């Protein structure tokens, strides 16, 4: 169970990291995607 004697921990930093991870994924995907279309 969550500890009640400390302030509730909300992982804001981890969520920010996750969003950056998603952006990196989008960057790689669409980078190769655009390269693919360029080579058609």
């Amino acid at each position, binding site marked *: 169970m969550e500890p009640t004697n400390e302030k509730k*921990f909300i992982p804001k*930093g981890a969520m920010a990291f996750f969003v950056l991870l998603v952006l990196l994924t989008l960057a790689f995907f669409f980078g190769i995607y655009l390269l693919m279309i360029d080579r058609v």
Partner: protein
Amino acid sequence: MQVTKSFKKIVFLELAIPLALLVIGIYHGLMQTIYRAGVLQQTSFAKLDYYQGLTLHGVINALVLTTFFAVAFGHVTMTFYLKREPNKKLMWTSFILMVTGVVLAAWAMLAGKASVLYTFYPPLKAHPCFYLGAALLIVGSWIPLFDWARMYNSWKKENPRTKTPLAVLGTLINFIIWFVCTLAVAYEVLVLLVPWSLGWTDTVNVNLARTLFWFFGHALVYFWLLPAYIMFYTILPKIAGGKLYSDLAGRVALFLFLIFSIPVGVHHQYSDPTITQGVKFLHGMLTYGVAIPSFITAFTIAASLEYAGRQNGAKGLFGWMGKLPWFDQNRFLFSYFICGLILFVFGGVTGIVNSSYSLNSVVHNTAWLPGHFHMTVAGPVFLGIAGMSIYIFAGMSGRKIKMPKIVTIVPYLWMFGMLIFSFGMSWGGLRGEPRRTNLGTTYLNPDHELFRSDWVPTTLIALLGGIIMFIAGMLFIIAFFSTVFSKKQTEGVLEIPVSEAYHDEKRVAIFDRFKPWLIAMVAVLLVAYIPALLNVNENSGPKAPRFNIDNPVPEVSVKK
């Protein structure tokens, strides 16, 4: 926890033997970057031919090291959490089968009779001992699963209402995935390839062999990865000074791996003939399914580290990243885990590119591919193996870690080298540089008509990365064996750091039972693979005879 001498002996051998072989494995990693950059412009060096060395590199690093470690780490995890040891006879039988397999395959490779690479695609033929050796390694690794299942069932009887420990769940799920996927490659090897290579059958359906191999081959990478995930969920948070953010998230991720690890293999065959675009697209979508548990893991581990950082006084959105035990010798495992995770960010993201159907045409079989997979198998997997091996060996044998400063720093050096290597390979791959090719003799030989000047910078960058990694790898191996051969200080015990969970959710039955998930796994497998196998059957023509690596003329003529 006290463990028997026999248990310790087997685990020590299973950890140390592959790490000793790794000297050869890493040597030929370096050598490849040297050949590929055109520094060497020849077919062999020091009596090892390029493709022979490439085979050794793949088999030792990606099959032997990983399988032995998974078994050893499984023994350690199951024993520690369930407080009972595996059956001694079965542990020895498993070990002996695996070692015998390695000896057979090693002989074939070193004798130059199995330069077929670790994927051994027919109709390039290897000596039967290579295939038999691989089969023995695999069959030996099946045995522990059944014994662990027995241990788990007896533990459950004694603890009917306790959640299965996450590490135990992970180990069992990992080996279930392994057992199911290796059935295909065992069939390929024992039924299709061994009789053919012995001359008992004349031809083999190459497409069928490839499809069976990749039924195994993608799940193989999860077999490598899940032990590292177990470390991230159950050991890392404790080492970092925090807690696992959500225990349930780990369970959900593991069961998703059980469903999605295997029915995605055709994404390695996007450019193959005989399999339809529809089946390929289906496997592509299922592969997006298997990406989900990795995204869950990325967040959950980040949240766990954020919790640790905040416990250490960090403020702000990203301050927690700084308040972690990056260079703490007493918590050296942290550096192995964090460097693995950083590499895996890039490894995972490039993996998503590779599995994205038509995007695959840009990268398949180019140097981009090894650029990707070194950031996964030679990232979190290798670093997890290295860190845990020295940790377990030292602890259980009552020895002190030798060269502790170096042991702590090595992952950072490795990571630095890897990022450089993979950057060079990825860039080269986008310029059309092929993988699995001895570039030095032709494409990277300025006097040759095939010379490609645009691959010079990319192969040089990969060479630089390779040299750095070689140094890091050798430093680790020296530190490991210095520890192994150092003087015993105390009677060793088996001890693994165990992370508490912040959200330690009540036991949820559906995420603590196997049956429904096993049924789902089989159902998805049938949907994914029956069409693929039907495709192969419908669209394949004549089967292929045996070819040796140096002769376009096959061994026996195909009967028309």
